C-alpha cells in the first residue's frame, strides 16, 4: 500500500513538473546575458530594460489592455442584459433556442470565428484594425458572460422583484436596486472571464487585425516566427507575473465578496 501511494505521488509530481517546466524555463533564461535559451552565461536585467524601453512594444501592450478592458466592459453590459432578457422569456422553446444560439460561439473553434468575422467585416466595409478587433472581442465574450450571469438570476427568488414592484419601485429601480446588486458576483465573474478571453486571444485577432494594429499575442507570434530572443522571454515573464497576480487577486476578491454576501442572508 505504501509503495502504491509513493508511485501515485511520483506520477503527480511528474505531471506538475512537466506542466510548469516550460514556464520556469522561459523565466530562467530571461536573466541570461547570452541571447539563447541553452547556455546560461551570467545574470542580467538587460532584457527587461530593453522591454521597458521599447516604445513600440509598450504601445502594443497598451492596445491590448485597452481592447481587453473595453471589450470586457461592453460585452458584460450586453451579456447581463441578455441574461436578464433570457430569464424573462416565458416560452420554453424560445429560451432553449436563445441558449443554443448563445453557445455557438463558445464551442466554435477560433479559426471559424476568425474566418467568418473576416468575411463579415470585409462585407460591411469595416476597416480591419482597432474597430474590427474590438468588435470581435466583444462578440466572442458576450456568450460566456451570459452563461456566468444566468445561474445567479435563476437562483434569485422572483418574489424579490414582485415585492419591489408592489412597493412602488419603477422598472429602472427594480433593475438597479434589486436585480443588479443580487447578481453582482456573476457580473464580476463575467467581466473577469471576458477580460482573460480577450487578453488570451490569438487566433481571432490574427484573422481580423489589419497591418497597422497589433495586440500582444499577434506580436509574440511574429517575433517567435523570427526565432528565439531573450527579449520575448523577459516579456513573457512579465506577462506570467501579471497573469498570476490577476488570477490570485480575482480569487481573493471572490472569496471576500462571497463572505460578504453570506452574512445578510435573504430568505
Amino acid at each position, binding site marked *: 500500500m505504501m509503495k502504491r501511494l509513493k508511485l501515485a505521488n511520483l506520477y503527480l509530481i511528474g505531471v506538475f513538473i512537466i506542466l510548469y517546466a*516550460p514556464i520556469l524555463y522561459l523565466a530562467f533564461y530571461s536573466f541570461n546575458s547570452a541571447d539563447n535559451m541553452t547556455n546560461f552565461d551570467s545574470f542580467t536585467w538587460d532584457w527587461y530594460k530593453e522591454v521597458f524601453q521599447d516604445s513600440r512594444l509598450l504601445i502594443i501592450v497598451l492596445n491590448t489592455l485597452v481592447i481587453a478592458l473595453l471589450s470586457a466592459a461592453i460585452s458584460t453590459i450586453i451579456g447581463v442584459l441578455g441574461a436578464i432578457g433570457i430569464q424573462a422569456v416565458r416560452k420554453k422553446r424560445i429560451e432553449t433556442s436563445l441558449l443554443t444560439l448563445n453557445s455557438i460561439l463558445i464551442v466554435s473553434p*477560433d*479559426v471559424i470565428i476568425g474566418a467568418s468575422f473576416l468575411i463579415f467585416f470585409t462585407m460591411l466595409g469595416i476597416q480591419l484594425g482597432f474597430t474590427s478587433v474590438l468588435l470581435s472581442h466583444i462578440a466572442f465574450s458576450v456568450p460566456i458572460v451570459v452563461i456566468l450571469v444566468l445561474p445567479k438570476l435563476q437562483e434569485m427568488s422572483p418574489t424579490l422583484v414582485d415585492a419591489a414592484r408592489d412597493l412602488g419601485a419603477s422598472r429602472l429601480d427594480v433593475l438597479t436596486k434589486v436585480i443588479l446588486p443580487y447578481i453582482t458576483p456573476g457580473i464580476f465573474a463575467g467581466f473577469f472571464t471576458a477580460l482573460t478571453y480577450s487578453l488570451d486571444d490569438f487566433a481571432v485577432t*490574427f484573422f481580423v487585425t489589419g497591418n497597422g494594429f497589433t495586440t500582444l499575442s499577434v506580436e509574440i507570434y511574429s517575433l517567435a516566427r523570427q526565432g528565439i530572443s531573450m527579449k520575448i522571454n523577459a516579456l513573457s515573464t512579465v506577462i506570467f507575473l501579471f497573469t498570476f497576480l490577476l488570477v490570485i487577486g480575482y480569487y481573493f476578491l471572490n472569496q471576500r465578496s462571497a463572505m460578504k454576501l453570506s452574512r445578510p442572508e435573504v430568505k
Partner: protein
Amino acid sequence: MQKTRNWYLIPYSFWIALFVIAPIVLVVYYSFLDLEGHFSFVNYQKFFTSTYLTMTLSSFWYAFLITLFSLAIGYPTAYLLTKTKHKQLWLLLIILPTWINLLLKAYAFIGLFSTYGWANQTLEAIGIGRKQILFTDFSFVFVSVYIFIPFMILPIFNAIEKLNPSLVFAARDLGASSFMTFRRVVFPLTIDGVKSGCQLVFIPALSLFMITRLIAGNRVITLGTAIEQQFLVTQNWGMGATIAVFLIIAMAIILALTSTKRKKGATT
C-alpha cells in the same frame, strides 16, 4: 408585467443576428463562390479530391492521437488528484497554466526542444544522444497534449468527485479486484466527464493552426491550418470557407456524439 416588451433582449438579439447568424450564413455563402466570385460548386469538387481528403484524414488522426494521450495521462492525474489532501488547491495549480497565453507556452517549447535545449541535454546525459525533436510529429502531439490536458483533467476530476465512494467500497467488499472495480464501476460512472473532456480537446485539436507552424514547422496540416492558409496566404476565401463548412459539420457530429444528458456548465 407580462405584456410589457422584453426590452432587455434588444441589444442581445442584435448581437446574435450580427455575430452569430450572419457570419455562419456568410461562410456558407462564400463556400459556393469561385475565385472570380461566381456561384459554383468548384470548391466542393476540390474538397473531394485526394489532396484535401488526405489532409482531413490526417487532421482527424492527429486530433485523435492528441485526445487519446490527453485522456491516457489526464484520467490517472484526475483520479489521483481526488485522493490528495488539498485537492482544490492542486486542481487550481493544474488550471493555472491555462490562463497563460498559448503563444508563450508554444514559444517555450521552441527553446526546450531545440538542438541544444534541455530536452536534448537530458537525452544526452542519459546516453541516448541528441535527436531532432522540434519540427517532428512527436513535438506537435506533445505540445498539443501539454496545452489541452487541463481541459481533459477538469471535467474528469468533477465526475470522480461526484462519484459516491460507497459504491467502490461495495464492489471491493463483494470481491471485485481493484482493476475490476475500476472497469465496471468507476469508469462507467465517470464516462460523462470523459466525454466532455474529449469534446473540449478534440474540437480545438482539429482546428489548431499556430502550433503547426511554430512547433511542427508546417509538417502537419490540420483543418485549422488549411483554413488560415486559404484565407490569409492564398487569399482563396471560397475554398477556405468550404473547409470551414466541413469543420463546422465535423464539430456538430462530435458534439452530438459526446453530448451528455445532463446540462453541465464546465467549458473552461
